[in-house]
């Protein structure tokens, strides 16, 4: 019974933890401009993140090594440092976007300007990282994030023409008024939002934090294989809501306030309350994960002592690094830069940087010295190679498309 509860809890937190500010904004933008014609990208992204998280979780459980230790060992110091710099900067950008997202959601709930909420959000993130137990942190934000299911509820309450939605989803076409490069630019953004690298740093480091062994692999696989696809459905519901309410009204999403309007339309004030709790929980949870990830990447590259399971004094540089990251994020947001804009760029840069972390994990998960008998099976490797191609193409195409489309405007 206890075991069953554990499995259920793992799956539920995986669903609630799947959505972050990147998924919220990108799915709503895409839904409001392209309808459901890019849903296939969410499917591709979800299969990819399942594969990637499964491999890095297995590496962590079988060898006890987290992602960035492995990256440095495999790539050596020079390529490893280049990789660290790129991954770290993009992660920092995501930290900034998530904290901004928490503040924007709190503004929607209180009408107090978001710039005043930003220090509050950052201090709260730091306090949780400083004091709260890892599993409690994960479970509380994950379960509260589940209230985002209200997007799916609202979609049903809106009573859309399901035939039209299915048509958009199953026979994708570029809608009128949008260009082909813009379509593909947002395809890459959506892919990056679903497959953010920080999820993988976090997943593998979290496996070490919680002391996974090979015995826990079955449960971790279940969490990923059930939780992430359901989280993906949540993403589709966000896009669907935007496609039903905002697209016909000629509204292109540029702010978080527009993301939640369809929920209010379908489910009223109660729905609004749920969605605000969900957005705060999801972005706050992701802010915790990305802040921890920035500490993890640095500590693992340089061999520092790290982990929330240690007292802060036993992982001093790890905690100092996270404090500095939060301060940098605060400073960036204090300039008044639009957090939604930061989010839109962060998901595309995530897609650009994805091969840097994907390839070393793919290599190590085939290395018997680390993995023993738990090396990739043939089916995983075939899928892994196919995704390597997809990830490389998305990464290489992103910058030219960004320039040609003026970042999707």
């Amino acid at each position, binding site marked *: 019974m206890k075991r069953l509860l554990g499995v259920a809890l793992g799956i539920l937190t995986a669903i609630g933890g799947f959505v972050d500010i990147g998924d919220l904004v990108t799915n709503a933008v895409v839904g409001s401009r392209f309808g459901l014609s890019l849903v296939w990208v969410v499917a591709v992204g979800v299969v990819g993140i399942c594969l990637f998280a499964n491999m890095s979780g297995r590496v962590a459980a079988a060898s006890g090594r987290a992602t960035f230790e492995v990256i440095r060992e495999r790539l050596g110091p020079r390529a490893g440092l280049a990789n660290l710099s790129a991954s770290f900067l993009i992660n920092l950008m995501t930290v900034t976007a998530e904290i901004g997202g928490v503040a924007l959601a709190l503004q929607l709930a209180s*009408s107090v300007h978001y710039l005043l909420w930003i220090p509050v959000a950052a201090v709260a993130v730091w306090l949780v990282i400083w004091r709260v137990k890892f599993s409690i942190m994960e479970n509380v934000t994950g379960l509260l994030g589940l209230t985002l299911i209200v997007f799916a509820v609202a979609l049903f309450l809106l009573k859309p023409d399901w035939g039209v939605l299915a048509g958009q989803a199953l026979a994708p076409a570029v809608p009128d008024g949008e260009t082909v490069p813009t379509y593909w630019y947002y395809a890459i953004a959506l892919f990056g939002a679903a497959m953010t690298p920080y999820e993988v740093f976090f997943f593998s480091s979290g496996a070490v934090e919680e002391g996974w062994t090979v015995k826990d692999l079955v449960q971790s696989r279940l969490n990923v294989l059930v939780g992430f696809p359901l989280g993906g459905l949540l993403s589709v519901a966000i896009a669907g809501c935007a496609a039903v309410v905002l697209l016909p009204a000629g509204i292109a999403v540029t702010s978080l306030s527009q993301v939640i309007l369809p929920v209010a339309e379908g489910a009223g004030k109660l729905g609004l309350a749920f969605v605000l709790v969900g957005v705060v929980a999801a972005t706050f949870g992701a802010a915790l994960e990305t802040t921890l990830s920035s500490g993890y990447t640095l500590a693992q590259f340089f061999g520092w002592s790290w982990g929330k399971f240690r007292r802060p004094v036993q992982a001093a540089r790890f905690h100092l690094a996270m404090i500095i990251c939060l301060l940098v994020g605060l400073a960036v947001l204090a300039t008044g830069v639009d957090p939604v804009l930061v989010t839109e760029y962060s998901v595309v840069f995530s897609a650009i940087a994805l091969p840097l972390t994907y390839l070393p994990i793919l290599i190590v998960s085939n290395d018997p010295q680390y993995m023993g008998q738990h090396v990739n099976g043939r089916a995983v490797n075939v899928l892994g190679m196919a995704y390597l191609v997809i990830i490389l193409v998305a990464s290489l195409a992103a910058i030219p498309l960004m320039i040609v489309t003026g970042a999707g405007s």
Partner: protein
Amino acid sequence: MVLNTPASPPLRGSRPRRRLSVTVLCAGLAVLVVGCSGVSGSVASAVKDSSSAVATARLALRQDMEGKLTRAATATTLDDALREVDTGRSTVQKLSPATREDRDTQRQALEALDACAAAFATARAAVSADDVGSAPTTADGDRALAAAQDALNQLGDKAGGT
């Protein structure tokens, strides 16, 4: 003695690849510049963004009237939408039209966008007032925004036609 790993020679194919990426970059920039220059192009995109913002505000006001949205959420949505309109207005203001036709386009767009901003002021006042005194009602705000939307639509149709 320190065992230093020797500095690896620079990768051979890296230079042509860099040249290729520079070419792609230049081509992209060229497209960008051509696509966005021109008064009518900038005006059209500002008008499009603003009409999306006005539609957002009208949706929020309607939901507010139907009791679906809290005052805090309505106010925030209006502020966000107004910022969008302001951005569009300052873009149009900064344009330096060369021909008489472009000057007309700019003037008409500015008029429409000013009307938008005024409508937003009405709507915002209606939302922050607690339904007392001489403050405009939410319905007044919606009417003002509807008029602004019509003006923007006409402008958009004309810009699309040329």
